[in-house]
């Protein structure tokens, strides 16, 4: 196990290096830069040169690259080109906890709602409870979350006026963004759980459990659930990575000062250091999530020998 984790970390570092390199050169290969003047606000050439020099943009690209890696090795993502006197580290430190908090709540909600929904659906297969939850699930998967957020915002904040619209200042502020973020994962988890549960309930060991006189509730919540939950654990890796790193759409609509918003604006701004910094940060985060999921996997199912 220990050796496996070390191996995975090394592999992760290599992935990160490749990711950084590719992003770095791609970014520089695209025409235009952070200080390419827009038509309307022409900057004097001399000023432009000075600015470029300050940020090291006049150096050859490979020198810039080496410098970037040097700083990166020390955990320094550099300073933002657009938001003067703000470092990328600061941007991440400010934005990530906000995004992560909303994301984490959404994940917990998604699991707490999706798993029981899927189980109920499987056990009441063909009954109204099954139909109802599968309708919710289908709707949840097919409606894009920007449509959902606008609808909910309109309904609860504008028409009914029972929930706030912007920011995250009270717990009520979390309700709408969390609902929107969790909706499609709930739907996905419920469907995954339903089909996995239906399959597991047919297995011989479920019959064995019943033949031992185990209470039906225990048959479902102990014997079947532990087996049926494995696909959910697999889905959890990417889900955590996506939700914790912030959703641009949701953060825009609900004015949440998260990291997703910064990331998207950095791309249109050609804010090199922010683009790179966040890409590297997200990459590292995804790598870590996947390692944790693999370990979790092996803890649940002892047949999996992750050392090999």
């Amino acid at each position, binding site marked *: 196990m220990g050796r496996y984790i070390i191996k995975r970390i090394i592999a992760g570092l290599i992935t990160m290096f490749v990711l950084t390199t590719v992003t770095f050169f791609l970014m520089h290969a695209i025409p235009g830069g952070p200080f390419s003047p827009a038509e309307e606000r022409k900057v004097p050439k001399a000023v432009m040169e000075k600015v470029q020099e300050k940020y090291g943009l006049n150096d050859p690209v490979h020198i810039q690259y080496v410098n970037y890696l040097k700083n990166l090795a020390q955990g320094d993502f550099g300073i933002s080109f657009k938001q003067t006197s703000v470092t990328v580290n600061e941007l991440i430190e400010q934005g990530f906890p906000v995004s992560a908090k909303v994301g984490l709540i959404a994940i917990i909600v998604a699991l707490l709602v999706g798993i029981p929904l899927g189980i109920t659906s499987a056990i009441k297969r063909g009954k109204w409870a099954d139909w109802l939850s599968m309708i919710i699930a289908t709707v949840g998967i097919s409606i894009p979350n920007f449509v959902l957020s606008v609808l909910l915002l309109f309904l609860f904040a504008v028409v009914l006026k029972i929930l706030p619209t912007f920011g995250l200042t009270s717990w009520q502020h979390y309700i709408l963004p969390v609902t929107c973020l969790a909706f499609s994962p709930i739907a996905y988890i419920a469907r995954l759980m339903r089909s996995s549960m239906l399959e597991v309930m047919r297995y*011989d060991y479920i019959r*064995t*459990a019943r*033949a031992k*006189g*185990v209470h039906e509730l225990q048959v479902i919540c102990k014997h079947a659930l532990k*087996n049926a939950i494995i696909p959910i654990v697999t889905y959890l890796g990417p889900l955590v990575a996506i939700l914790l790193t912030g959703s641009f759409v949701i953060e825009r609509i609900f004015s949440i000062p998260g990291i997703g918003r910064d990331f998207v604006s950095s791309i249109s701004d050609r804010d090199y250091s922010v683009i790179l910094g966040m890409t590297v940060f997200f990459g590292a985060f995804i790598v870590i999530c996947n390692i944790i999921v693999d370990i979790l996997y092996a803890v649940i199912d*002892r*047949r999996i020998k992750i050392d090999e």
Partner: protein
Amino acid sequence: MKLLQINNLKTTFHIEAGQVQAVRGISFHVDRGESVGIVGESGSGKSVSMLSIMRLLPENAKIDADRLTFDGTEIMDMDQKQMRRLHGNDIGMIFQDPMTSLNPLFTIGDQIMEPIRIHQKLSKSEAKKRAIEVLKMVEIPSPESRLNQYPHEFSGGMRQRVMIAIAISCNPKLLIADEPTTALDVTIQAQILDLMSDLKKKGNTSIVLITHDLGVVASMCSRIIVMYGGEIVEEGTTREVFYNPQHPYTWGLMRSMPKVTEGEKKKLIPIPGSPPDLLSPPKGCAFAARCEHAMKICTQMSPVPISLSESHRAACWLMHPKAAKVERGVGS
């Protein structure tokens, strides 16, 4: 009072194509302390009839019986709580495939201790003691350390021993063993059967043993039930069925039985043809299409079971007084 009494049990599966009549009106009983063998080809309804008694069939199965009593109590009227007592405490069941019958994600100890804790209300440490005790009974070496292992760390034979240990852990009154050795290789088969004979000698447990192998029945059971196409075609003491078989299907089974004569195996003669379609079972005798003695009446009317002795009965028109006498095709 019989331990298990079954009168006219019918089990039907509702599937898209129609109704599979897997068990079509069987009646038999099991006495206290006796062991009964059920034989018959694949698909004859052996497992389904036992699972019907345990009410462990999938939802699409419908069970109907005039009487289905265990120890005097009607099984079909039992509530959930009574059923749980029946399961594991009164009746222990061993399944056909040991590779899939244990939950892969729980330790062996956990799975053995589960029924012990449920039924005997023992504490964790007492349950553990009992688990070690039953593992010793089924001859699993170093049971203490094995308790913490997972099923994948056990071989097929070892897993079946664990299944037996689970089934006997609460001293059931009846042990149902559904082809306990089919999935295992020959030497392991012999070991498991020895083990079951030992258990039988030691305890006062009744056993229902389902098997394809008449030889196994002969060595373990005092009575034999022969099933074909969801019906019982012949039933009697082992002696009666072996020395005076009445039904052509039983003859066929005997002929297809591997015999070890003077150290060498004779060639098997399998029964030609295939079992009846249970979606629309034939009107007359279910075996008629494959029976070399079939008469006109056989395809028109079902034969009624006729008793030869208090324990021996069979359902075949050949036993009718008016039928011509035929050469019994059992061979010697």
